[in-house]
Every structure is written in C-alpha cells, then in structure tokens.
C-alpha cells in the first residue's frame, strides 16, 4: 500500500505540479488564468502517442515534436483567447475565452484522435532502479522543469525580463521591455511545460481526450494552495496533492477520494486564503 501511495502519488503529484507551473507561467505575464492548461496536458499525452506510436518517430523526436506542438498551442492561446480580453481583465472574460478554446481543443481531439483511451508508448523498455517508467518519468520531468526555470529566471536576461513583467507590468514597459513579445514567449513556454506534464504522465493517464478535466481541476489546486504565481509553492502543493489523493484512494476509496481532496482543499483555503506560501494581504489602515 505504501509503495503504491508513494509511486502513484509522486507521479501524479508531479504531473499536477507541472500543470500548475503552466498556469503560473501564463499568469505571470498576463494576469490570466488560462484554462487551456488542462488541454495542454491532454495534448501532451495524445501527441506523444500520435508521434511515437502511430507515426513511428523515435522517442526523443516524439517528445520534442510534442513540446513544439504544445508550445504553438500556447502561442495560439495568447493570440486567440487572451490578447482580445486583456483590456477588460476586471470583467474576467478570460474565463470564458480560455475555457471556450479549451473545449474546442478537446472536441477537436475527440473527433480527430479517438473517443476512448488509447495506450501511451513505453519509451525505455527497462525499469530505472526498479521503478517503472510511468512512475519516474513525471518526477524527472518535474525536477528538470524546476531546475530549468530556476536557471532561466536567475541566470538569463529573458528570465529576468519575465520576472520584471510579472512584478510590475507598467514599470517594465516603461523601461522598454517588449511586453507583448515576452507574453507570447511565456505562453509558448507554458505550452511546452503543460505538454511535458501530459507526455510524462501518459503511461498513467493514457492518451485520452477527456483528461482535460482532471488536469484542469487537479492542476489548479496546487496553484491556489501554493499561492498564485509561486512556482515553488505549486511544486510542493502538487506533490502533496498527489500523495494525499492516492492516500485517500486507499483510505476512503472510490469516488470519495475526490470528495476528500476537494474538502481538504476548501478547508486549507479557509484557513490560509492566500495559499500556503503566500504572504498575508496587507491590511489597510
């Protein structure tokens, strides 16, 4: 039981954490929660199966093609569903526009791909330290993304520009930073991260168009729990979510595990509304 909780919990937690990071990366430059994050996760699994299983591409090429495709979907999201509503952020129209695009992607996938779960290919035929690929791959992907983002944000000009836009959009523009270009780049990056989440967890989630909802819902929980925009918080909360979900699966079982997850989520937000890693809001006096 413990082995299953840890293996499945860490793997799914890492996948949720990656989706949460995709949410955050998009949010940081646009202040928009794009619900296409779940669609990107779903596309990661479907594209991986398509490129490797059906088209016969080598695993690495299939992975790169998947990431490139999802990055393009991210860019399309910025142009189609985000840019037109940025001027009226206070009306939260992005909820409708990104959700609509997400549903369109899902339905298109259902029509063109398959309406029933399809197998995801095994890339490496041997286990790593006795751990099956579908369990270690999401965790490795998560570690690589965390490390990559740290390098990007702390040791590159473009990363610092991302942070500047996230910190103060108007000040960054006043300094001459190309805000639109950076926003498009952040959506491409989020697309690749979301696609990687689906690709890495394909062995568990399978290549299934209906994976959009679990990725969207369970991927959003670490965003809120880990404090909005905080990638480290999202990673910790995502892993914790995966472990708790799997433990609940064993302890209460069946459909009640989802109830347990969302109950704890609601209680946690009641206690710390700013998230586990966020500072309390400043009090006006």
């Amino acid at each position: 039981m413990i082995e299953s909780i840890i293996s499945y919990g860490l793997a799914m937690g890492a996948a949720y954490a990656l989706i949460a990071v995709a949410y955050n990366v998009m949010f940081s430059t646009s202040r928009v929660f794009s619900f296409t994050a779940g669609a990107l996760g779903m596309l990661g699994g479907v594209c991986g199966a398509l490129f490797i299983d059906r088209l016969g591409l080598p695993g690495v090429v299939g992975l790169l093609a998947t990431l490139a495709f999802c990055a393009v979907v991210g860019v399309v999201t910025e142009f189609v569903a985000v840019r037109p509503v940025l001027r009226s952020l206070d009306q939260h129209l992005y909820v409708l526009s990104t959700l609509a695009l997400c549903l369109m992607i899902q339905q298109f996938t259902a029509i063109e791909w398959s309406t029933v779960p399809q197998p995801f290919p095994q890339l490496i035929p041997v286990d790593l330290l006795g751990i099956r690929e579908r369990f270690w791959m999401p965790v490795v992907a998560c570690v690589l993304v965390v490390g990559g983002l740290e390098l990007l944000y702390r040791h590159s000009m473009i990363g610092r520009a991302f942070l500047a836009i996230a910190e103060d959009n108007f000040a960054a523009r006043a300094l001459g930073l190309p805000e639109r270009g950076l926003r498009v780049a952040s959506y491409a990056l989020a697309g690749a991260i979301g696609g990687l989440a689906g690709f890495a967890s394909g062995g568990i989630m399978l290549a299934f168009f209906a994976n959009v909802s679990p990725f969207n819902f369970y991927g959003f929980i670490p965003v809120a729990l880990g404090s909005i925009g905080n990638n480290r918080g999202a990673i910790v909360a995502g892993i914790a979510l995966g472990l708790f979900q799997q433990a609940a699966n064993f302890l209460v079982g069946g459909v009640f595990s989802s109830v347990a997850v969302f109950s704890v989520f609601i209680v946690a937000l009641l206690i710390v509304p700013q998230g586990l890693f966020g500072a309390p809001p400043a009090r006006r006096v």
Partner: protein
Amino acid sequence: MSVTRRGVLYGSLGAAAAGLSARQAAAAGEPIRFGWLTALTGANSAPGLGYDRSIRYTVNKINAAGGINGRKIELITRDSQGDPAKAVNAAMEMASNLKVHAVFGPVNSGEALATTPIFTRFKIPSLGICVVNSLIDPVKFPNAFRLSPDNSQWDDAVRHYLLDILKAKKVAVIGDNTGFGTMATALAVENFKKAGAEVVYDAVIEANAQDVSPNLIRARSAGAEAIACWSDSTGLDARLMNARGQIGWDVVMAGHPALGSGDVAHLLEKPEYWNKVYTVGYRSCSFDAAGKLPPRQAAYIEEVRGKFELQDTLLWWVLAGVDAVTLVAEAVQKTGSSDSDKIIGYWNSQKKWPGLYGDYAFSPQEHNGYPTNDIVMSAANTSRDGALNIAPGYAS
C-alpha cells in the same frame, strides 16, 4: 343556385377526402425519419460506435434497394457525448422539430432515463438497448420497447455464473460512477445477498480513475473469490485488469459486455491480464465448442466483412443496430404507414420476431423482448469478429 345542407355535406366530404389523399401522397414520398441518439464521443462511446456502423450500413442498404414502399430512410444522428443534458436537448430536437417517426437510443441508461419520458410525450416509437429496469413500462411508456435484456437479466446471468457454475461464495462488486454503473452495482449487491452469497467488498469508482489498485487490494484483503464488474468504460475495465495482474491476483472477473471490447485489448499491459475475464454474452453471438456461430449470424458477418470493422467492437452491438433499423422498416412496410400507432401496434403483435441479435417477443403488456435463455457468459479474450467463445462450464 340554391345551397342545400346535403350539398354542403358532400362538398365537405369531398374536400376532406382530397386533403387526406394529398397528405397520403405527401407521406408516401416523405422519408422515414429514423432518429439515432447515442454517445459517439466520450468515455462511454464504445457501444455507440459499434451500433453506428451497422445502422449506417443497414440504412444505406435499404435505401439502395429502393427504400420501404418507395420511401427512403433518413438517418438522423445526434451525439449526446454521454451527457444526459445533451441527450435531452437532442431528444427534444428530434421529437419536436425534426419529427422523427421512430428512434433508437440513447444506449446509455443515464441518458435514456432522461429522454424516455420525452419520446413518450411525443408518442414516438422508441427502441432501447439500455438495461435499467425502470426504462420499460408499457403503462407509463407505451411507445418504448427494449431489444436487449434488462439489468436483472444481465445480473442474473453474472450471478448464476459466479455462484452456480464457478461456486464462488464471497464476491466483490465494482462499478463506475455513471447512472448505469451506480444502479447496476447496487442491484448486484442486493441480489448477491439475496442469493446467499457474501458481498465482501463493493465500490463505485470514477470512470476515468487512474489507479484502481486500492480497490482491488481491498477486495482481495476482504477475501473475494470473484469480482462482478459493472462498467462500460473500457478505460476503467482495462485498468481493473491491469491492476489485478500487477498485484498478482488470479481472481475471476465477470460482468459488463465492455469487458470484452477490442478497446480493452489495446490498453492491457500484458495479454494474459485478460485471462479469466468473462462478459455477459449471448448465444446468438457466441462461438460454440466447434468454433462456429449460429448460421444466420455467420452469414451476416460474411456479408459485411470488409465493409466495416468488426474486430474492435462487439458483434451484439452491431447486430442490435441491424435489428433496430429492420424493426422500424418492417413495421412501416407491413402496415403501410409510419404513424406512431401503426408502428407500435405492429411491434406489439410480434410473438417471435427473428432478429439477428435475438428473437424478440413483444405484447401490449410486455415490452422487454429479449429471451432470457439466450444470455450466457463469454470468455472476454476470445474475440473474433466481435463474437466470443462461450465461457467454460456451460452445457452446450
């Protein structure tokens, strides 16, 4: 010229007759609108895709041969995506706007529970394949007829096999969280207990649950000697079989026909994980010990071979689709009318209508048409052309 009362009467009769014949003439050229409502996309779409192939083939075949009494069949398909709300909208559109003459579907019980009263309100003859018992009631729903067994008949077949043939005493019951899965699980638990078996574990699981090993570990710990499985989600079925194999549990699984679907095979980590899995099956779609199907069904397979895929679906889904179209077409042909009362009256008069999926018997008092004796269990991993071998233990 004087206007007499008799003249007015004759004139009215003449005008009425002229109007009637004009309507009949229009009806004669009017297509027979056959509504086909099902989930063609979504987690529970595997059955719908199977029926859809034979329905299209049969409609095209009838139309190519000139139609029914000179009238073509117009196939009106709507995809409910497994969502009862969408099914209700489609049913309203079919009944109110498109004015279909008869309808087949939905094939998912959760949707059918929502749409059956709608078709009844509009008096549309409807053929169903859902197994939930309450869907058929000749008093409440005089227009609704069932081609498949009801849930009790399926449940009887599984329970009989596990308890009487395999001699299991302790069973686990697992279903998915759809309307059908929830009801079937509850019914199975109740009936196992009534039959004297001990239900040591029962659970309703999300149809898209990723890890189901906790459920199987609990069932094994509770001492289950067999598992009754009630889910038509091929993803969940495959995950249950994979989890059973991974924990090294050599227990029998028996239940919903989707356990034998070709889509399950693609998702299994090892082919042997499909061993000792038995699905509800039918004598009409089962290979006997000599590996042969009944002659009529074998002839149909030869007819459609190469015209549509049979390997990734179930033969009974395909054959039921043929029977649905044929029952409507024959009712219109024999009665010369597509009126609701005529079609329903024709179906009510069938004592043993020889379909491909089954020989149905309907009456004004009984709209469950499938013969119970033709329900058997089949070995899930023996599919050829969508048909399966009869499970071990049955007398041939």
